[in-house]
């Protein structure tokens, strides 16, 4: 059995000291070990930005793609090999700005991929510009007078486009976060996990202390039922999205791959590429 240490490699992350992403990386490694994976059976596909580097810091097959496109790449990998565990990851700019189209469609497509978004409400790698998660009035280099655009509510958005697994966490809650990633991996369908992962360098508003003060754990809400979509939506709206835990899970809907007509039970990557002559002749005859 592999332990979380087996998912460590020799690369030193280039994140700033104190960055929330360190804990996300640790949680991912622990979750991978806890669900019984071997490093070669995990593929981590990431986007561009500080958080996008995560695929290079985990001892697993890692693919660091282009800005905003971790999800289509991850879905392609999963389609090629349904036996792999595929985690997509990136920041809030990657997933909710340039890659938002893919996020929405990956959610409604429901391919069995776990998507971990490191949400710091700012563009860090480009040194401090506004993100779609920045609050109205948030001052950055690109919004010197304060942001005048509405902030996106990813969890509510996910619920409206048919998500089957929606969760949110805070990078310091290593245990809870690990458990949520495990649950996401085990979920038969697309899992979106938004993680508040503070940027200690460029975001002086949404700090660790700010989150500690403002977040509510769903486990502290009496009678919260994660299978109730309406309750999930109301709770999110009531708390302005600032809740942590499993927000919603639908275990009834089948994953995309379960619904494809004729889809191979074995990984496509292992398929016999040779078409037999009779099959070819049949295809040709249809054109005669």
């Amino acid at each position, binding site marked *: 059995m592999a332990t979380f240490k087996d998912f*460590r*490699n*020799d*690369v030193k992350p280039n994140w700033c000291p104190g960055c929330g992403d360190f804990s996300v990386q640790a949680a991912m490694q622990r979750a991978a070990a806890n669900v019984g994976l*071997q*490093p*070669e*059976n995990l*593929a981590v*596909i990431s986007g561009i930005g500080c958080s996008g580097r995560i*695929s*290079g810091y985990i*001892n*697993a*097959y*890692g*693919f*660091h*793609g*282009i800005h905003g*496109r971790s*999800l*289509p*790449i*991850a*879905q*392609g*990998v*999963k*389609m*090629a*090999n349904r*036996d*792999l565990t595929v985690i997509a990851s990136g920041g809030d700019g990657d997933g909710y700005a340039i890659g938002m*189209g*893919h996020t929405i*469609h990956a959610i409604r*497509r429901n391919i069995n991929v776990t998507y971990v978004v490191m949400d710091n409400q700012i563009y860090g790698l480009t040194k401090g510009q506004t993100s779609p998660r920045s609050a109205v009035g948030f001052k950055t280099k690109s919004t010197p007078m304060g942001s005048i655009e509405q902030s996106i509510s990813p969890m509510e958005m996910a619920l409206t486009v048919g998500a089957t697994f929606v969760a949110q966490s805070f990078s310091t809650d290593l245990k809870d976060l690990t458990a949520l990633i495990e649950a996401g991996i085990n979920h038969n369908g697309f899992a979106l996990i938004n993680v508040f992962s503070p940027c200690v360098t460029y975001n002086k508003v949404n700090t660790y202390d700010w989150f500690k003060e403002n977040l509510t754990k769903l486990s502290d809400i009496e009678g919260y039922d994660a299978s109730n979509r309406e309750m999930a939506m109301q709770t999110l709206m009531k708390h302005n999205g600032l809740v942590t835990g499993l927000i919603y899970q639908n275990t009834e809907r089948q994953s995309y791959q379960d619904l*494809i*007509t*004729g*889809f*191979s039970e*074995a*990984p*496509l*990557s*292992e*398929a*016999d*590429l*040779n*078409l037999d002559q009779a*099959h*070819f*002749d049949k*295809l*040709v005859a249809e*054109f*005669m």
Partner: protein
Amino acid sequence: MINQLSWKVGGQQGEGIESTGEIFAIALNRLGYYLYGYRHFSSRIKGGHTNNKIRVSTTEVRSISDDLDILVAFDQETIDVNYKELPSTGVILADSKFTPKKPEDTEASMFAVPFTEIATGLGTSLMKNMVAIGATSAVLDLDIHVFEEVVREIFGKKGDQVVAKNMDAIKAGFDYMKEKLEVGLQTMQLEKADGKKRMFMIGNDAIALGALAAGCRFMAAYPITPASDIMEYLIKKLPALGGTVIQTEDEIAACTMTIGASYGGVRAITASSGPGLSLKMEAIGLAGITETPLVIVDTQRGGPSTGLPTKQEQSDLMAMIYGTHGEIPKIVIAPSTVQEAFYDTAEAFNLAEEYQCPVIVLSDLQLSLGKQTVEPLDFSKVEIRRGKLVTEELPEIENKGYFKRYEVTEDGVSPRTIPGMKNGIHHVTGVEHAETGKPSESATNRIAQMDKRFRKVENIRFDTPVYKNAPHEDADILIVGFNSTRGVIEEAMGRLKNDGLKVNHAQIRLIHPFPTDEVLPLVRSAKKVIVVENNATGQLANIMKMNVGYAEKITKYVKYDGNPFLPHEVHTKCKELF
């Protein structure tokens, strides 16, 4: 008796013009005739003039003809737009419903035939197309029983009665016209064909079939004219092989998902046209630097932007060779016949895996959509070669070191492991990286990796990079083209030969890396070189000048009005050079 003829049916889009042409063509194809079709259509579902021109011959044809023998018209616009193609022997069969007017400046004959009226009398005006087929058959002196099988295949699902009614409509059209013919008009009796069964297909069918033959099991694509047929064919056929197609949210997802699938170890494809390719460019660069095999089809249409979305053009050449920022190795192949579209697509998968880079299968609208008779495909010629894909068990790597996926090798190609392989773990990134895939900004590494990547494509092994018909050592003229212009050049060549000129022909099939060694001797030995291409700037001519020199000899002959070249145009242009 004639051995070939051209037939065109035209009307408003949505009136069944396409299916009329289809039924006529399939039946003739089954009799053993060679057909070559050209569809004129607009980017809308209903309305707008559309026509389907079909050339029928007892020998292989790969081009539309200069003129037209029979024009079937369902509206006046069809006559007005097309009558100039008719010589004095030509015939217009027009629906009497719109009271057709014959233009004054034509010597062709016109018959007003009650297509709609006869069809309505038999039950529904929808069958007017069948009446027209019957009338055409009378002119050609065809036995209308040849249509029975096709009509049954198309309408069989709707029941025997519908089949019978449609056959009645064909017969009624035939009888009506036969009577007319007895009072004067000559029939155009077609020579009998050899009766051999051959495929009748579009280039896109061949591309999709080539992908299946090559072991492709996954496609991610976004709908676009003129590429969608490839996706539509594969979604029908892949389930039987365990695979599937995903219609993605956009072109970027289509390309990146294909890259993900290919990285994951399955043979995957994406297909689009110019606008889609523009959107895929960043991802193509990703495949280039990460050395991920990637097969992309570009069915060119009129650009730029939305351009002429349903018209012929060959203007993506430069974009396909150079497109993406930065520099990557890339292979661009351009089949010039439907058969080549099959073989080349299949081969594209081998090239992508052998050279671990993007391979673009370049097509054009006329090749992709022009339905034609195709000689048998030899499936045994399709090979599956996976290059340096690791298949054996790998030794354990000490101290959690990574597998050298980007090992600097003599031929530039590194061993490739795919996710799931034990001891094959490595990193993949669009950031410049060292041998294990880990990011590196070191200058020496940068040079080593760039050089390694470009070394891969220094000696591409590609069977017949140039199709040559070059009988002359001292040709007066060398005609060069790529993609669908092959047929039209061949016809022009025959006519130039009759004019007493020594003509050589080269159709470039490997566009990039450019097969200079193959082309140079042909250019050197010809007095003049003319490059025939459907774009405004002479992109292939410029590529030739760059690679083989002889700029003073090379003339471009361009056409960018949305229509394919006609044989007489190429013939005339070449003659003008002398």
